[in-house]
């Protein structure tokens, strides 16, 4: 922004004011156009410019930086009624409306009406000047903040790319999980449907453990040997399971200390 209102300059005071007015009017016009477009109101096809005034700035006198900033305003401008900038631009909007309506009224009404309209236009012009003077610093601030916001938005856009990637991966994972779940359900359903009688071979065949049984001699079935074997087993079991100590009948515990 080359146009700083707080910088005194004798030669360029008038030029600066003109530039300010042109910038303000252009910004206000742009805003009103943008708001109308957003509200869906019909736009005027032909706009009759007001009578040329030497003090009234034209769009061509706007600097290149201002030109660059103006289009960015609608992009970063919030919706209607959300910020102070839009509220402050309400008055210039009314003025522009009057300017838009003016050609049709000129065609319909007489000179008095035209004079009234011109008087009203002057008043509105002055009002718009005052408003522009008051609004321009805050507007610049708003533009600055909008520039910062644009930078933040760009950073956020970079971040949003990362977020999008993460979201994509997340969605892919969810899709895979759902697919796996469906596959498992189908597999189980298929297993339940298969008849249980059919043997299913799983794993590797393992050899059956064979207990070593030595070959029996001719005495294996000898009745004396068998009887001795049984007797010995019974005897060993009885010896091992017997408690030698008498535990059921221990001597009683008595009190013999009787004294008075």
């Amino acid at each position, binding site marked *: 922004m080359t146009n700083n209102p707080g910088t005194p300059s004798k030669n360029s005071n008038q030029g600066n004011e003109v530039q300010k007015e042109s910038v303000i009017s252009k910004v206000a016009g742009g805003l009103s156009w943008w708001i109308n477009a957003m509200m869906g109101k019909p736009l005027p096809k032909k706009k009759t410019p007001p009578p040329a005034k030497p003090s009234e700035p034209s769009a061509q006198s706007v600097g290149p930086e201002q030109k660059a900033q103006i289009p960015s305003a609608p992009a970063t401008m919030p919706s209607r009624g959300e910020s102070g900038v839009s509220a402050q631009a309400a008055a210039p909007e009314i003025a522009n409306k009057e300017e838009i309506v003016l050609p049709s009224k000129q065609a319909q009404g007489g000179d008095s009406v035209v004079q009234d309209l011109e008087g009203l236009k002057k008043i509105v012009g002055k009002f718009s000047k005052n408003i522009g003077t008051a609004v321009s610093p805050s507007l610049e601030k708003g533009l600055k903040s909008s520039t910062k916001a644009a930078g933040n938005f760009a950073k956020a856009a970079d971040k949003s790319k990362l977020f999008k990637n993460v979201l994509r991966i997340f969605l892919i994972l969810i899709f895979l999980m759902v697919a796996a779940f469906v596959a498992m359900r189908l597999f189980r359903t298929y297993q339940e449907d298969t008849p249980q009688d059919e043997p299913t071979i799983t794993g590797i065949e393992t050899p059956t453990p064979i207990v070593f049984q*030595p070959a029996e001699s001719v*005495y*294996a079935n000898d009745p004396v*040997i068998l009887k001795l074997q049984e007797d*010995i087993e019974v005897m060993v079991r009885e010896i091992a399971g017997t408690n030698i100590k008498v535990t059921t009948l221990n001597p009683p515990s008595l009190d013999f200390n009787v004294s008075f």
Partner: protein
Amino acid sequence: MNEIVKKFIIYGLAAFALVISWYPLSIFAQSEETTEAETTSETEFETAYNFYQTQVGEYQSAHAEYILKKTQYTRFKTLQSQQEAQEATVKMLEARDDVVISYMEALKLLLKESVGVSDSDRTTLNVRIDADIDWWTEHKEKIPSAGSLEDLSADSKVAQGRYNFVEPLFYEVMATISSGKITDFDERLSDIFGEVKDKIIEIKSEERDDYKLSGQKLSQLDRWILEADNRLLRAEEKHAEADKEIGTIVVAAQRRQNPIGVYNTAILRLNEAQQFLKDSGTYMKEIIKEVKTKE
């Protein structure tokens, strides 16, 4: 003629019916007698043991009453409290003697049931137990005649001396019962071992080719027989040591030694003998297994 035949048939049928009806009754009566004879010893010991437990319970309640009355007498020193203390002491001393008597009765029946105890040992121990039962019975009868608390204290001291004298007998009887178990095992296992050795001798003398065992197998069988025999000998040695300890229980008490320590030593030796007997039986099982296995 017809009447004679009729009489013969009628009397014959009557005799047959009498025999038929009497036979099952006689069998039933025999089985009842056998069952009663088999369960008599168990029932006797169990009855005696339950009676002993009852006596212990009565003694404990009498002792608690005695402690209460003694405390009251010590505190108040009144004639009434003295009288009550004397009555409670008499009850307690009587209950205490009942406990000792019932314990010895139960011990006597347990000794009667136990296996492996020689008749001489059983008789000797029974005589000693009976003598002590008589002594405690007489002592119990004397207790109510005590005229004062001091007399009751003196009676209690006499009973204490007698109990210290008879207590080693209790441990001796219990150790004898334990020793009898080892004797029984030793005898039965020795008998089985004798049969095993006889069978091995028979196998060794076998002349048939199919029934002959190789020299290697026979030497292995001899090795197991030797091991089993050694374990039996070890068991007998330990058993003899235990018997020796049992014989010193009463003597140790007379020498003012602890009879319980001697009793525990004897039980330890008997446990060692039991382990050797078990090992011997395991070697006998190996002999049988070796005989049954083909070369």
